[in-house]
């Protein structure tokens, strides 16, 4: 439905988008995720037409729109700071795209009423943006973007200006709306939990380059590189060297300790590798428990109680520090000796 082909955009010497190739399918919600300055907003603005790529082409619905100005691209967009027209009422704001397209007044009224019903703001048509709360303003922005059923809906960090609780509620509303209307949507955010919760697919960017595109599960469980593993969720990283490869298992030496991990294709003895494991996959057991695969002696260094989880800093015998998160059913106190188990299947190997 949307395609960015070899899109490159530079601001002076800064390369904001470096040869970005991305395809967004019809009817899916794809999130562009990445830290500030990674180029996700630039990529979005190439789709909308607010930026013109220096190289590459942009396609929407099969048509090359690289030379088409924004106002002819039939898009809907929701902005981070809402961008409502301050001199117009809610009704007039939502009506604006229809008014521009010279639709008949009765038809306009019907469509505006529909849109306001979708966002549950009937009865507030006469209010001005300055009389609305942040959440209400953003809903009006949504209505304005959706009222004429555009081909594509674009959302540029729409929830960043709202408080945390409202953000969570609006997340579901947006997802519902987009599914209900069967729209193609491109969402930009730096909040990875938002990205994982909302999207059909996630495209991670860093320093202008596309790092990985996949479903939230794929991104989380099989990150393609070090950056993604560190950016999505929490990770404990280890550098080590492959000692031996036997069948589907490999032995990796990490600072004197040996870990059994799933073998990857092309692993050979002596190869340096980077491993990572999610802190909530690490299992803590009593010192006296039966030995298990990848279980090591360790000592609890710091404990942080967070209610639903407990965050530990644990030191292993070889001075390796691990961050561990458990559900808090069993609490270990600082200084106590424990066994730390890193289940082999939950250890991920990244190519060096």
């Amino acid at each position, binding site marked *: 439905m949307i395609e960015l082909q070899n899109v490159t955009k530079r601001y002076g010497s800064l390369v904001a988008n470096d040869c970005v190739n991305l395809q967004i399918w019809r009817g899916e919600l794809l999130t562009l995720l990445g830290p500030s300055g990674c180029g996700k907003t630039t990529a979005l603005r190439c789709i909308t037409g607010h930026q013109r790529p220096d190289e590459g082409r942009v396609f929407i619905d099969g048509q090359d729109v690289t030379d088409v100005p*924004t*106002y002819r691209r039939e898009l809907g*967009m929701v902005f981070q*700071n809402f*961008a409502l*027209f301050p001199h117009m009422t809610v009704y007039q704001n939502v009506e604006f795209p229809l008014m521009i397209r010279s639709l008949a007044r009765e038809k306009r009224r019907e469509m505006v009423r529909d849109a306001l019903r979708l966002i549950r703001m009937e009865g507030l048509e006469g209010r001005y943006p300055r009389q609305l709360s942040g959440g209400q303003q953003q809903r009006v922005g949504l209505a304005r973007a959706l009222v004429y059923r555009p081909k594509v809906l*674009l959302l540029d960090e729409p929830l960043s200006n709202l408080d945390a609780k409202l953000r969570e509620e609006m997340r579901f509303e947006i997802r519902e709306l987009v599914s209900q209307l069967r729209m193609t949507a491109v969402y930009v955010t730096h909040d990875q939990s938002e990205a994982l919760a909302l999207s059909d697919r996630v495209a991670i960017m860093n320093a202008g380059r596309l790092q990985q595109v996949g479903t939230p599960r794929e991104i989380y469980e099989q990150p393609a590189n070090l950056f993604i593993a560190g950016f999505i969720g929490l990770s404990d990283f280890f550098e080590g060297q492959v000692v031996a490869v036997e069948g589907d298992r490999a032995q990796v030496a990490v600072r004197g300790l040996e870990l059994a991990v799933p073998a990857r294709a092309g692993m050979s003895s002596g190869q340096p590798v980077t491993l990572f494991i999610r802190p909530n996959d690490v299992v803590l057991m009593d010192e006296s428990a039966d030995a298990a695969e990848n279980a090591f002696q360790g000592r609890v260094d710091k404990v942080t109680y967070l209610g639903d989880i407990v965050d530990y800093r644990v030191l292993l015998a070889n001075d390796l520090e691990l961050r561990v998160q458990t559900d808090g059913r069993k609490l270990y106190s600082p200084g106590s000796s424990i066994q730390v188990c890193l289940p082999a299947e939950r250890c991920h190997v990244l190519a060096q």
Partner: protein
Amino acid sequence: MMWDTLRRYVRGLWNGRFILAYTLLVSLSLFIITPFLLILVKSLGKEWFGYRWLPPKVTLDWYKWAFEIARVPEVMKNTLIIAALAILMSTTIGICSGWAFGRRHLPGKEALMSIVLLPRMIPPITYALGVAQIFYALKLVDTHFGVALAHVSICAPFAILVLSSTFQSLDDRVLEAAGVCGASPVRTFFHVTLPMIMPGILSSMIFTFSTSYNELTLTLMTYGPDTITLPVRTYLAVGLGYWEVTSAMSVILVIPSFLILILIQRRVAPEKLLGGFKGL
């Protein structure tokens, strides 16, 4: 309900601090209003030679004099034409400069802004003579355009200040939103940009009008028999000693400004007109 407020008011008055505050407020108000009251009374009084509180007879003779002999209607016409020209030129300059100041990155912007404000920092009399000399050479003396041009030197700084603040606060994203909604740049301008900057433009125009309307010094240096403005006429009448007629002309002078102030004070807070801009 009125009795409640009255009771509260009186009770409040008995409080020592309030007495002091109210005394000061009333004194200040009298201090400001008394000259106007004096002029108003003088313009309506006959045979009032200063040894009584109020004039013995009330008359409108002085107003008749002002209209027929001092030719106030014609003078008012001049004043308004010059003000209109000054508004036109200042607003144009203000829009162009304000756009640059408010939305573009200019090296030395603060220095430029200081230079722009310079005519307001120094008394016009210091450069009025220079202006007069140039105008004589260019044959601009005693033309409406000439006097208006002189006024622009003190009107444009305000216009630039107000409009650069207006343009600076013009949110780009709102204009982008209009584009995404399907509005071409032209339609975006008329439907979105213009309504958003109109309050700033109106504010600048009111300020410019007020400045030009009340300007004496520069007008004195550039006027002629065809371009007598109301402030000049009043000043000349004072010099001739006709106090009562002068009072009548002063009252006439004040009325338009007063009317405008009342009209706009609902829409634009007067405090905003006098300061509180970004960068000031």
